[in-house]
């Protein structure tokens, strides 16, 4: 037994640093909840490992010692009440010992009271929206990994599939409460280093919380199968010092006001199409494809589509309100009039289409 203990100590102390390099365990925790989860996991793992070594030590000893080829004859016993009671009762108490720290961690994890900041997170196929309810700041967070990298045409970046245009920004050391919901199907918002995973369920609000230890950028992704783009729906959280957070917040508010003002300014047709192409790449190309051909049977082609080449009003209605029962979402809650006008104009001119252009005012007129 002494030898085994020695070996265990060596295994735990000597091998652990290597683990971190080779990512054999959870990522280093960056919030108090993540730290509790990590400690609990290591504890349970070590208990399981200990039991495994003892039980299968016994099994492999038996396999070696009681070989028929070594001439061992079987002893015909088949029950022993004492040992059977012992190996029913002892595991029970080990389990009670595991349940105690787990229970405490659950209660801490579920305690969303007294937050210092509340952010509403809405899942869309396939992006996240962050709404800072107290501060009137709201934006979409889209994946920025280029399609060429996914298709292996371009070299992959360091944060391949885990990079976004606008990350969620929160202050370090503050209790951040998340209110989660979804616009379409079930998603799951997950950042391993912060120890948070919570499903976003359409029609319902769920909450969770975290308190990030220190500034840094933490990356995760959607954890619940949500369709074609499930693997391409990153979550990026940028934790800033409280002072930097305030600077960011002020800049963000100013930027948002400028965006609203710009949306009503006149824009040339060429600029509108250019803007539309960007919107299309981010929000539409996953299904309808960059070449507008769609995926036969699943997602309709836009190139040559009667809707896209027909009257503008029908096309606008379609994009605003979506098609219930399919993956085509209602974009009215996700995009402003200028973006919708831009993307529709782009679609109506691209891939040989000959539809009339659309202006923001046309979109505004059709909003219900």
């Amino acid at each position, binding site marked *: 037994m002494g030898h085994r203990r020695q070996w265990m100590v060596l295994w735990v102390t000597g091998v652990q640093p290597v683990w971190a390099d080779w990512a054999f365990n959870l990522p280093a925790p960056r919030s108090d909840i993540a730290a509790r989860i990590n400690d609990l996991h290591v504890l349970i793992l070590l208990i399981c490992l200990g039991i495994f070594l003892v039980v299968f030590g016994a099994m492999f000893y038996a396999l070696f010692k009681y070989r028929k080829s070594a001439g061992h004859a079987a002893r015909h016993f088949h029950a022993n009440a004492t040992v059977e009671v012992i190996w029913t009762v002892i595991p029970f108490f080990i389990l009670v010992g595991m349940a105690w720290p787990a229970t405490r961690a659950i209660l801490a994890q579920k305690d969303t009271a007294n937050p210092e900041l509340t952010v509403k997170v809405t899942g869309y196929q396939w992006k996240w929206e962050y709404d800072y309810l107290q501060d009137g700041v709201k934006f979409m967070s889209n994946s920025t990994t280029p399609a060429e990298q996914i298709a292996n045409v371009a070299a992959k970046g360091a944060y391949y599939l885990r990079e976004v245009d606008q990350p969620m920004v929160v202050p370090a050391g503050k209790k951040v409460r998340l209110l989660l919901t979804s616009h379409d199907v079930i998603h799951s918002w997950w950042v391993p280093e912060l120890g948070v995973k919570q499903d976003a369920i359409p029609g*319902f609000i769920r909450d969770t919380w975290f308190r990030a230890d220190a500034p840094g950028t933490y990356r995760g992704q959607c954890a619940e199968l949500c369709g074609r783009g499930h*693997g391409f729906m990153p979550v990026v959280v940028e934790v800033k010092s409280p002072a930097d957070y305030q600077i960011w917040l002020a800049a963000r508010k100013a930027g948002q006001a400028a965006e609203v003002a710009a949306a009503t300014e006149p824009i040339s047709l060429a600029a509108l199409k250019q803007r539309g192409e960007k919107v299309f790449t981010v929000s539409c190309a996953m299904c309808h494809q960059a070449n507008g051909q769609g995926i036969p049977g699943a997602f309709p082609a836009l190139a040559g589509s009667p809707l896209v080449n027909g009257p503008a009003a029908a096309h606008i209605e379609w994009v605003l309100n979506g098609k219930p029962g399919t993956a085509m979402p209602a974009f009215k809650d996700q995009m402003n009039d200028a973006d919708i006008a831009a993307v529709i104009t782009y679609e109506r001119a691209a891939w040989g289409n000959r539809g009339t252009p659309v202006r923001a005012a046309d979109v505004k007129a059709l909003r219900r």
Partner: protein
Amino acid sequence: MDAAAPALPHGQHSAPAGLWRWLTTTNHKDIGTLYFCFAATMFLVGGSMAMLIRAELFQPGLQLVQPDLFNQLTTLHGLIMIFGVIMPAFTGFANWQVPLMIGAPDMAFPRMNNWSFWLLPVAGLFLLFSMVLPGGAVAAGWTLYPPLFLQGGISYDLTIFAIHIMGMSSIMGAINIVTTILNMRAPGMKLMDMPMFVWTWLITGFLLIAVMPVLAGAVTMLLTDRNFGTHFFDAGGGGDPVMFQHVFWFFGHPEVYILILPAFGIVSTVLPTFARKPLFGYRSMVYATASIAILSFLVWGHHMFTVGMPAAAQLFFMYTTMLIAVPTGVKVFNWIATLWQGSLSFEAPMLFALAFVCLFTIGGFSGLVLAMVPVDVQLQDTYYVVAHFHYVLVTGALFAIYAGLYYWLPKWTGHLPDPALSRWHFWLSAIAVNVLFFPMHFLGLAGMPRRIPDYALQFADFNRIASIGGFIFGASQILLLIVIVKCVRGGEKAAACAWEGAEGLEWSVPSPAPYHTFGQPRELR
């Protein structure tokens, strides 16, 4: 096939030959063989899908399949392996072995037995046919969660139909097995005299009858939500998408035990044979199996720890889940005590049974880790979960099926399986399966979600290792096919009692077992 199904012994009645024989047969041995042929075919199909999945995940980026097809492959792989391979294979064992082990002439309802089997290929064909429909096959995961499931096309309705058909087949099969066990045992065989395999199937039968209708109800609600304007799972109409998960997992967790209890039965049969010593703690094995089955109705919430249930519910489901470790532990300890002071030899069935005990327990431990709600919050829907359920279903259920196949093949074919080839099959499988699934624990811990066709660069190394293990594991299964074909065609003749330490009624009839057995009741004791 000639050796597997010898000609009628006395010509008392004539039976059709060829295809018509297999379509109309009511003989439990024929139907058992049919179940195995179906399971083997679907195993090739579902396994090829797994190979394609592992090939796509061999390196980052999209190479072979686009995300839509990838999601179809993972969904169909799950549905096919569960409903088309593991369940039919165990039903094949039940058909062949339960009557032989309890001294019954056949199953209680032989015609229904035929119907239960022939429904299955229909359902399987529907599932595969849906791949060529517009929009492709179902891609919402084998768990069929709405609202994603409600977005799909016509193949989703066809999948619901297929699940209904498979459910009917399972329920009829289960009723047949339960009735056979309760009513047709040889005179003198009390319930507590039954072989352990028969006990596990009796309990499995009750689980199937209890939960398959629940699954049917859940998919019917999906059907009406999709086509008839109901809103069971649509918050916009007053429904709740999470309710589906509750209903599904109320079926789904007992289903997990439907997939493993017969495996426990096979291992409890094989280990005593090759330890040349009776099963240790038979009574506690029976009680442990029954308690696992009862507890399985109380733990469904552990599949849903991240949906946002209240702390009280999380605690309840965590405690009940942890409790399952107690009877499961009892089983493992009993198996090891069975080996203790035995006279052990290591033929292919024994090797697979021993690997089962060891590797299934790894799956049990990762299950315990996942039962801890706070840890599960990190690991839910990651590759850790994929590793966990593949340890219990591949090195668990599938390895037990292999153990059972090698163990009873001599009884079915009259020949011993090729010892060298079967050992090669074992060692290649046992090593490759760990190369395949063990790194997935690390991937999950590091943050790789399941069901993604492409991944961030930090997951590349372990995915590559897993894929290599997967290819070797997949290729090794061809050896099994060769062993079985060789065994059916010829080989060393098996005695009536093919294994030195084997006990039970099935070893009292000749090998291969005659077409009709136990025509006269065998009085026991």
